[in-house]
């Protein structure tokens, strides 16, 4: 509907603006009619000057239209054109103006934004070297801290491993020492047993029995 209006309204305006003068040019001028009339007879008188008022229904004797009627017609035509043509044209013009203004504002804003971006990037580019240096320095600092941390952890871990190794070695040494001591003790006892078995005789047995008897005789055992 809007597209149809856009086509019809300019077309109507062009028709009115161009067709009205054509109609006016196509009708015979009043002066020619008067001369024609004068040429045919003297009885006709030639009217001169502005005719202000004429019969609006028609039937005037000289065929001219009154100036006031023309003005009224013009005003009426103006109101009609205003109602059917100019209002639409103004509205369409206003819409287009608004659209153009909106687009202009948007373009202005976009341009401002682009300018800001350009300025920002220019600033960034300007500070890029500094930023790169800062990043490099921060990275070096972080790497150094990480290196120190890893080194400390590694040292701690190594210390733990070393302690665990020392403890394990101590345990193993203690176990081996105990085994060795046991073996030495067992060998010593075995040698002692062998020596006693080889030399133990009846006199030794009697001596032990005597000692046992002396010990038990001096003891009071409960009635059990």
């Amino acid at each position, binding site marked *: 509907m809007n597209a149809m209006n856009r086509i019809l309204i300019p077309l109507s305006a062009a028709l009115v603006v161009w067709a009205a003068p054509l109609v006016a040019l196509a009708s015979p001028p009043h002066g020619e009619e008067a001369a024609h009339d004068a040429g045919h007879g003297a009885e006709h008188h030639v009217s001169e000057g502005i005719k202000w008022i004429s019969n609006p229904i028609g039937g005037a004797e000289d065929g001219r239209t009154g100036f006031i009627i023309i003005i009224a017609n013009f005003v009426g035509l103006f109101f009609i054109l205003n109602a059917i043509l100019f209002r639409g044209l103004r509205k369409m013009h206003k819409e287009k103006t608004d659209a153009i203004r909106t687009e202009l504002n948007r373009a202005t804003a976009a341009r401002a934004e682009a300018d800001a971006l350009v300025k920002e990037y220019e600033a960034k580019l300007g500070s890029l070297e500094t930023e790169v240096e800062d990043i490099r320095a921060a990275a070096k600092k972080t790497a150094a801290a990480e290196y120190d941390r890893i080194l400390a952890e590694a040292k701690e871990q190594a210390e733990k491993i070393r302690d665990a190794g020392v403890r394990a070695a101590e345990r193993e040494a203690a176990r081996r020492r105990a085994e060795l*001591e*046991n073996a030495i*003790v*067992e060998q*010593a*006892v075995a040698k*002692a*047993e062998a020596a*006693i*078995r080889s030399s*133990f005789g009846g006199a*030794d*047995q*009697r001596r*032990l*029995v005597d*000692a*046992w*008897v002396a*010990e*038990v*005789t001096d*003891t*009071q*055992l*409960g*009635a*059990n």
Partner: protein
Amino acid sequence: MINGSLAKRYARALMSLAPNAATRDRYLATLGDFTTACKTHDDADPSGESDLINVLDAGHHTLANRRAILHAVLRKVGADPNMVKFFDLVLERGRISGTEQIFLHYRDLADEAAGRIRATVKTASALDPSSTTRIKGALEQATGKTVLLETKVDPELIGGLVAHVGSYTLDRSVRTSLDKLRSSLRS
């Protein structure tokens, strides 16, 4: 097998049947002989099913048959009528498998009543009679009771002796001395 308190109750009951020390000792001898008879085992019967104690305890034999076997064995060991009645009661109550426990408790009660105590002496070699006498005398002096001494030989002791008297152990063996030496060296 029966539990200890039950065996002790039977032992006390048997003690009450004996009017004097001689009868108690006779009952003790009968109980000991019967227990020894019950321990006999035929190697041809690995299951032990035909052992005396198992036959007497077997429920699939009639009580009359088991009683007849019991009486035959008791006649062999020379049991008096009270002992026969006692064993009849034990058999009927199904406690015949606890005879050994009853015997051990009865022996303790009879020994206590008679002022006796049993001692075991282990030596590496057999004791000569004089040593045995001296050991027995020393134990009697220490306990204040008549000592029934049992001697055993255990070569592992190497030398010396170990005596068990009641709950006491009197040890003067070379083996124990070597064990103590081993412990002291290790510590």
